[in-house]
């Protein structure tokens, strides 16, 4: 039998996903810094960093939710649409329904959570495959979104702009000089990171993702884990939709659709494995920063938005391929 040598800490760091991502990030920064002057721009400056971090809380909500689901072996493709639905509910409430803004936010979060609950029921009780169930629910959420966005004369409004003083105040709210959404992002990552890595419940997510049958035999209630995660993902997506409305002050048919795969790509880039049972949120955060820097860089060098969409697809495929190769290497190491 082959014995395992203990790995020195330096090579452990060198081999980690987060390190690889930081190398990738540095490379991106160098490339964009060199390319930016071609478009009379400058990449390496404070405003770029500010832009990268400013709205990052919105896709971060999707990344945390979807990342945790993937850890447990699931997936949610409806998250972005649910976030869009939440943004539209909040906007329409302020424009048409006339209830206080926070009631709209509560309704949006409840609707989001209910969609998550339906996802969980479809997957756990009816045995659907997660992405087909969530894909179908994404269409249903889209239908509800359009229904809500329809005005009294029956026209579907593409974008619903609103003006609300309280939401303006929220947008300007800062804590220690940081925008509140950045602080919220940090809190979310710390809370969910600790939940995943330190709590018993978080350990259970890994077990369920690694081997659902074994987890059940070990006495873990995998259904409860799955229910929690689906509802949590949709809730966080709804929260992302709320943050979006505070930043942009509208909600519409295409809200958050650019971030449809961002959460998934960031999580996989950060080492959350598609088979389930591996990865953490730290890597996912770095993965998200890589994606945002990439997008911001593309804007600064003046690339066509269509090209950006091509490359974000390529990025997803690269992330998946890297995941495959690291899984294979791991399998070889343990001699499977």
């Amino acid at each position, binding site marked *: 039998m082959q014995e395992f040598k203990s790995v020195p800490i330096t090579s452990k760091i060198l081999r980690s996903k987060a390190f690889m991502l930081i190398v990738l990030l540095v490379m991106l920064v160098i490339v964009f810094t060199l390319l930016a002057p071609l478009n009379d721009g400058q990449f390496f400056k404070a405003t770029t960093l500010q832009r990268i971090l400013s709205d990052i809380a919105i896709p971060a909500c999707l990344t945390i939710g979807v990342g945790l689901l993937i850890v447990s*072996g*699931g*997936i949610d493709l409806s998250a972005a649409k649910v976030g869009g639905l939440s943004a539209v509910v909040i906007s329409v409430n302020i424009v048409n329904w006339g209830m206080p803004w926070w009631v709209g936010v509560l309704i949006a979060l409840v609707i989001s959570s209910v969609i998550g609950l339906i996802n969980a029921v*479809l*997957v*756990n009780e*009816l*045995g*659907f*495959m*997660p*992405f*087909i*169930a969530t*894909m*179908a*629910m*994404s*269409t*249903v959420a*889209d*239908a*509800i*979104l*359009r*229904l809500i966005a*329809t005005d009294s004369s*029956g026209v*579907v409004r593409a974008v619903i702009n609103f003006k609300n003083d309280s939401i303006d105040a929220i947008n300007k709210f800062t804590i220690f000089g940081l925008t509140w959404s950045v602080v919220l992002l940090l809190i979310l990552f710390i809370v969910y990171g600790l939940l995943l890595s330190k709590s018993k419940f978080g350990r259970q997510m890994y077990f369920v993702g690694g081997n*659902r*049958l074994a987890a*059940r035999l070990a006495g873990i209630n*995998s*259904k409860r884990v*799955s229910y929690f995660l689906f509802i949590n993902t949709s809730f966080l997506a709804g929260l992302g939709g709320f943050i979006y409305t505070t930043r942009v002050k509208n909600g519409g048919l295409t809200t958050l659709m650019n971030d449809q*795969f961002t959460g*998934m790509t960031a999580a996989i880039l950060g080492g959350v494995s*598609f088979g*389930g049972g591996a990865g953490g949120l730290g890597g996912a955060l770095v993965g998200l920063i890589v994606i945002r820097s990439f997008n911001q860089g593309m804007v600064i060098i003046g690339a*066509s938005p*269509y*090209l*950006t*969409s*091509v*490359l*974000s*697809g*390529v990025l*997803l*495929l690269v992330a*998946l*391929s890297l995941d*495959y190769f690291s899984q294979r290497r791991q399998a070889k190491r343990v001699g499977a």
Partner: protein
Amino acid sequence: MPRLTRFQKIRQSRPFLLIALTVLVLLILLLNNGKEVFNGGNATQLMNRLSYQGLFVTAMACLLMSGGFDFSIASQAALCTIFFADFVTFYPNVPWIVFALVVMAMAACMGLINAFFSQVLNLMPFICTIGMSSVWLGVANWYSRGLAKAVNVQSFSAVASSRLFNSPIPLTFVFMILVIVLYSLLLKYTRFGRSVMVAGGNPTAARLAGLDPRKIKTALYVNASVIAVIAGLIYTAQQRSAATGGLPQATPEMRGLTSSMLGGVSFMGGAGGLTGAFFGIILIETLAYSLTIMNLPAWFVLFVNGMLLVVALTVDSVATKTRMRRLGIRSSGAGGMVMPGMSR
């Protein structure tokens, strides 16, 4: 288990159920809107839609039976038809069929890329083809700048406008029926067709029986892409223009998936036939057409489309469980966490 009579067998089959539902939808439409909804123009419009959707269903159902999946066929078709539109505009002297063959070859290469990701790198077909779909659609948008490209070739548009013996039936519809019949026969009576089912149902058994599931699936990915482009060309001929917005917005891959599930093709591969899938798409298109005629709002049509997939899946799940129970197999307890393509 008691033996079923021939009549019982037909009555319990999936196509019978789907035809009955289609008739029901049409009856409701008739009661609601009167006889004029069935005039020649409307029927032709429905058959025009069916002629490309039916081809997409053929492509998707064959892939599903082998346990594969391709989310990107609509984007591939959009990109290829945009290239086709430019080809025929730049070289008006060359017959269009040459360029049709060229874009079919392009599509075959795109199918090979999907096969590479799913069969060589073992990525999940669902997720990696979503990525590819974003890539192809992005390239198409980038190349066409999001604008529609007109196709003004008389002989090409004639493909869509020609009718069978002065009847309201378009020739493209007949072509689609022929393709479906051909593929049904191929699947049923040839060695390759039989091996598709085996590869989808149990890849390990297929390998042990001397078949190569990877080769079979690669052939089917290429096949799906090529059929999709033929469908895209029919769509282009009908519209007389190619654009990124048209075909992908009709979500033919989702319709293909839904109708396959309605028709009894299992997501895990190894079950179902083209007949069921064909009647599935007829039901879906008739329903969509009826909802539009009845002037129902867009959100409702979307809602019905989403719910139809849920219903189809529920039927599929219940049918599988019943079959398992009848065969005396207990569920493995995977609980829906199994992904297609995991069993390579």
